[in-house]
């Protein structure tokens, strides 16, 4: 069993009534930004999104918002993690979430980006978009299931 020499009550997230829910709100709003902007690109790659704009254009224009969202979501996530590290460390859903998040970020900036920028509208593009949506939705599910398993 892992132990930490760390007073959890010294963490404002555990002592201030407003801190924890507020951090969660930032976390949720930020993943709406990051996942939402990726989803805008994805629906375009699926062929059911913006008609007059290409996925390549969307990747370039939403990139900064995806990145900002990811920075805030990871920062607030680290803060939430600090409120009870041991609990999260041993939580299977949390562990899955971290691997999926890593996979999601790598996927987004490699395969997903490359295919979106290529302007390819074949089946490959549809598959890449579908996988992207699946990964990000699974991360959201895993995040919520931390509280349920």
């Amino acid at each position: 069993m892992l132990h930490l020499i760390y007073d959890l009550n010294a963490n404002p997230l555990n002592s201030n009534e407003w801190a924890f829910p507020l951090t969660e709100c930032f976390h949720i709003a930020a993943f709406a930004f990051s996942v939402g902007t990726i989803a805008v690109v994805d629906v375009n790659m699926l062929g059911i999104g913006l008609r007059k704009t290409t996925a390549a254009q969307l990747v370039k224009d939403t990139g900064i918002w995806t990145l900002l969202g990811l920075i805030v979501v990871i920062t607030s996530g680290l803060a939430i993690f600090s409120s009870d590290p041991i609990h999260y460390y041993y939580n299977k859903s949390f562990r899955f979430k971290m691997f999926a998040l890593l996979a999601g970020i790598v996927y987004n900036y490699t395969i997903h980006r490359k295919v979106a920028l290529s302007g390819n509208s074949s089946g490959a593009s549809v598959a890449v978009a579908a996988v992207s949506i699946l990964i990000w939705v699974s991360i959201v599910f895993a995040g919520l299931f931390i509280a349920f398993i």
Partner: protein
Amino acid sequence: MSAAEISHAIQSIGFLTDFRESSLMYPVIMSTHLACIALFGGMILMTDLRLLGISLTRVPLADVIDGLRIWKRIGLVVMIFCGLMLALSEMDKYYANTYFQIKMVVLLLAGLQHLAFRKSVYNNAAAIDKMPELPGVAKLCGLTSLIVWIGILCLGRWIAYYEAPGKPDAAQLVGSVRQEMPRQKMPRHAEPGVAVEAARVQVPAATPGL
């Protein structure tokens, strides 16, 4: 019939009771509700920022609004379905929850916001694209939408942190032991057996109807 009795009658409907007591369906529907925020809520935020002239400025407004319309509609339907399941199945707790009540009011405001700007912005995007710069009404539309949707998001989260004034009723405590107890009171660091004991102590001695 009081609001409490009506709420209890609603959540006692067979399938809502089954849903509430299902250890899998409840979190699955809650996750779906949250995933909708990610996918479709994000699209609303991007549209709002486009209306404010902050993001996607090289993409025509009409393309953003028309292209994402179907997705936002699908998202809204899924979101409301999940939200109804979550709220109705725990109506005992929700009906008196101040944050829930405010959320419903702000949700109504979101509907009114859409109606207010439907003609001038949402169905007028092609004409706005022809204007030399974004009109004030488009920016006002984006700003009000951003405020109400971020508000709804935060209020939704805060529902879980509501503490009823005065003596909490037994049903609420039993529910809170499961997951909604205020964080700092959650006996999570104790051994499992101790946690159960601590949870039991908090239930009032007289618990009629349980």
